[in-house]
């Protein structure tokens, strides 16, 4: 009996551990451990044994059952693992094949730059104003200290909508300075981006329509040092903390003192290279302290209030940022161009 149990153990465990798949394993389980299985059959013969042999054989039988069950469990785990591996292998994809993308649209490069600039000024407590492009000469020129007879007012330079030259397409966003001063309570911190128009033929650097952003601060005790500090901070946010700015005297009819701001050429660090045309600096914007005549014209007491303003061309900024070589690309709107940004 003992010998039979031991033989059964050897045969069954070996068969189980070699079972090729889970169906074969189940068949083996039934063959050995089922109600009519071989172990069960053997145990039914226990009755024939002598009384004193029974405990030892019983113990052995339980031991054999346990070992067979263990073998089945272990084989089952092994087979299940193998199946999982096989499935994973079968499901493997070539991850280098392209993903399925939704076509996402692109923001126009000029607006990319404009949005950045707007965000920077918003963070400094500015608000954003929009104003008319069909504008009165009064706002575009006269109230900006640009009298009759100024060359910019010529019909060769400015688009006019009335014979008496009273209505025109604004040539700059600066009329928004006057409109803000006339309509807003003080203090004012505003930027006003928008389209402007000048009678320039289209070429690689000119367009009869382009964009500017105007900015202005009016408050008590505003100084040129504030102008410098603020615009320097804006440039550092736009171009990075290590950006170096410089200010040069310049002339605008509606600011005094007036200046232009340059940013040190990022490519050569100011030594001079083709990017900055050898100057070491790149001109970015015009600015100045709002002219007392302009303030007074808007009913602002120049003994109490002062202000500064700036104006910046946006196309040139975008062209420099993205190294766009020709202004015409900006208005051509070829999707092969637009999708690069």
């Amino acid at each position, binding site marked *: 009996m003992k010998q039979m149990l031991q033989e059964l153990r050897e045969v069954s465990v070996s068969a189980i551990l070699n079972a090729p798949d889970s169906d074969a394993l189940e068949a083996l389980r039934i063959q050995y451990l089922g109600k009519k299985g071989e172990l069960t059959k053997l145990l039914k013969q226990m009755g024939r044994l002598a009384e004193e042999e029974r405990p030892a054989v019983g113990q052995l039988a339980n031991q054999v059952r346990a070992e067979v069950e263990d073998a089945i469990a272990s084989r089952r785990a092994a087979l299940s693992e193998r199946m999982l591996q096989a499935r994973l292998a079968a499901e493997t994809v070539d991850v280098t094949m392209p993903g399925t993308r*939704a076509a*996402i*649209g*692109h*923001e126009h490069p*000029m607006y990319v730059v404009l949005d950045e600039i*707007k965000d920077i*000024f*918003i963070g*400094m*407590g500015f*608000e*954003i104003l929009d104003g*008319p*492009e*069909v*504008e*009165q000469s009064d706002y575009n020129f006269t109230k900006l200290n640009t009298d009759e007879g100024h*060359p910019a007012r*010529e*019909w*060769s330079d400015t*688009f*006019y*909508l*009335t014979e008496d030259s009273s209505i025109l*397409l604004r040539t700059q966003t600066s009329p928004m300075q006057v409109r803000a001063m006339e309509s807003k309570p003080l*203090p004012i*911190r505003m930027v006003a981006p928008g*389209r402007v128009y000048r009678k320039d*033929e289209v070429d690689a650097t000119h367009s*009869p*329509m382009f964009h500017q952003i105007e900015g202005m601060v009016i*408050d008590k005790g*505003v*100084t*040129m*040092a504030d102008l*410098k*500090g603020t615009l320097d*901070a804006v440039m550092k946010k736009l171009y990075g903390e290590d950006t170096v700015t*410089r*200010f*040069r*005297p*310049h*002339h605008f009819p509606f600011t*005094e*003192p007036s*200046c232009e701001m340059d940013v040190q050429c990022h490519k050569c660090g100011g030594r001079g290279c083709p990017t900055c045309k050898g100057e070491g600096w790149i001109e970015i914007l015009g600015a100045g302290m709002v*002219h*007392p*005549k302009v303030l007074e014209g808007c009913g602002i007491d120049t003994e109490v209030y*002062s202000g500064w303003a700036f104006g910046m061309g946006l196309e040139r900024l975008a062209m420099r940022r993205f190294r766009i070589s020709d202004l015409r690309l*900006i*208005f*051509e*709107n*070829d*999707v092969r161009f637009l999708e690069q940004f």
Partner: protein
Amino acid sequence: MILSRKWLNTFVDCAAVGDREFAEAMTLSGSKVETYEDLHDAIQNVVAGRIVKMTRHQNSDHMWVCQVDVGGDAPIQIVTGAQNQREGDMVPVALDGALLPGGVEIHASELRGERSDGMICSLKELGLTTHDYPYAIEEGLFILQEPDVRPGDDMAVVIGRDDHVVEFEITPNRPDCLSVIGLAREASATLGLPLTLAQPVVKGCDDDIHNHVAICIDEPELCPRYTARMVRNVKIEPSPAWMRERLRNSGVRPINNIVDITNYVMLEYGQPMHAFDFSCIGGKQIVVRRARAGESVQTLDGNERALTPNMLCICDGEKPVAVAGVMGGANSEIVGDTAMVVFESANFNGPSVRRTATALGMRTEASGRFEKGLDPQATVAAVNRACELVELLGCGEVMQGVIDVVPNPFPQTTVRLEPQKINALLGTDVSEDEMRRILLSLGFGLEGSTIRVPSWRGDVEHYSDIAEEVARFYGYNSIPNTLMRGETTAGGYTDRQKAERRIGALARTLGYNEIITYSFISPAYYDKIRLPEDSPLRDSLKILNPLGEDTSIMRTTVLPSMLEILTRNFNYRNKSVKLYELGKVYFKRLDGMADEPKVLCLGAYGEDMDFFRIKGAVENLLQGLRIEDPAFEADASNPSYHPGRCAKVLAGGRELGVVGQLHPLVAENYGVDAELYTAELWLDALLDARGGTPVYEPLPRFPAVTRDIAVTCDAAIPVAKLQDCIRRAGGETLRQCELFDVYTGAPIPPGMKSAAFSLAMRADDQTLTDEHADEIVRAILDALRDTFNATMR
């Protein structure tokens, strides 16, 4: 303004300051330097040489072999094909390795078997013309007649190329800096070096101008001052080399001594001058008056100019002899036999000169200066300087007397010096002493705290102008950088600005690329989009002086702009294009200005595009803006769109815009053989239609029951109407009604269609029973049958 630094050094000795340093310093004090150049760089290793011997080339019938003394131990040999040289001539010699203007390099070589150690140069090869050296010839070698030139002398020095030139961009408020003296004054203040100016000294002769001519200004507004002197026994000849060199290095072509003197004084003093041949001035008088109707004058450039009464002229007793401040007349030109000359040094009204110059299409050095408004006090010194030069050059006898007509006196501008105010404006702490020092160095007068503004500084009239002068020389970059103090402002984007940004982001998420188009279009574009003749959209603002027809009116619709860009992309063979623009349109207003509402325009074409795709994009946009219950109504009347594929977009009863396929004839007008789709939505209407903040709705606790139904009805009944009917009949329990199929064709009878809907029903307080759901479906089918005669399939 091109400045010769050699010339500048005669007023401010700043030769020790390098070009780069000079340029940087001048730029930072307000005289912006565009470029600078060492003229010597262009001519190197070219020396004077004397031809000591010349023999025929043995292998050539025209070449000469010259032995040339170039200052070395022995002569060098140079082969030349030129014929105008003689033994003993002094000539410019480009040595081996020489550099000539235009980047030409010269190397020793062999010419038909004879060694040639360089090249003997012509005028042209040195970048010169006979204007620079009237005694030389264009074709042939430049035979030098300059005194004191020895073999080996640097030719660049001999011809005055040992100079550095600096080109300035002078702002229009500073016409005084369009002169050597003006820039010298700036350089002196900038570099802290002394400025040396001299009063012109004229000896004169025994005759007096008053014996010969009378001058009268009829238009004091247009000519505030007219100053003149006369010269007799004039000998017209080339001016001396030093004068020619300075003119040439300043970009002005030498002509003859008298003309060169007028140009020299203009460059030096900034005061344009004119010289008349007195023999051509009839009636012994000069009258400054407006041109009479029908008058004309031939100007020095040879063109006959028709004049109008807007134009100021210099006239003799009867006829114009010059267009004031613009150009002289050919009838009084300085020519070879001119014997008596009148020098004019006048002040003319800037805008008047500019308008005249523009009208005649001739901007000149003179008009470019006058139009900026010149110093009226400069005329006398300038005319005296011209006469001083006449005597210096020995080209005539200057008469006594200056005729100086000043109809109205010129006021002296004064400004109070207010150091505290200036520092408060600049944010600086500049001492009053420093301010005074700066102002004095610029020629301002100071009496106590009164600043007397010099006459050449017409741009200074206010304390802020004084602040700029102080800041320029204190240094803009020495002003501290401070951040703004004062009352804080909230700033930030407005609700509408945020929504506008959101619309852009939504459009891009939907695959549309942003474009920027011109606001002006051609009126012909309205024909291209098939607007009827009487369409109010044709009533556009017109630009009276457009660049061209294509940009001559302000658009009242963004459609042509979008179509132009779609067409361009189509022609570039870009497949599948989706674009959007948030652009303004411009409607006439009674006050002459415009209403400028913004329109969101979508435009697309391509294989993946059809009506329902662009409509879907519009629906997504509306959904993104929480616009509730939008409606789409078929619109067959829009002339730009396909009558069967166009819908008005509505929300809350208000029209938001239109979406559809462009009319095939419109596409044809643009030459596009494809279906074009666009949507035009009014930004204001979109923003107004936005829903409020969403309120959380509890998630369903009970399952929904779904049923599909299909009905057959007249094909003309819009699906939206069927859905409305279903929703009404379904009541609150019907939560969803989605179209999933529309079918026409057998077995559906002609003229009919089958529409299939998926319905979802759910109650909030219990699980819906099948019986209840069936009851609702029955009610829906009854309603469809009663309303549309639609039957269940």
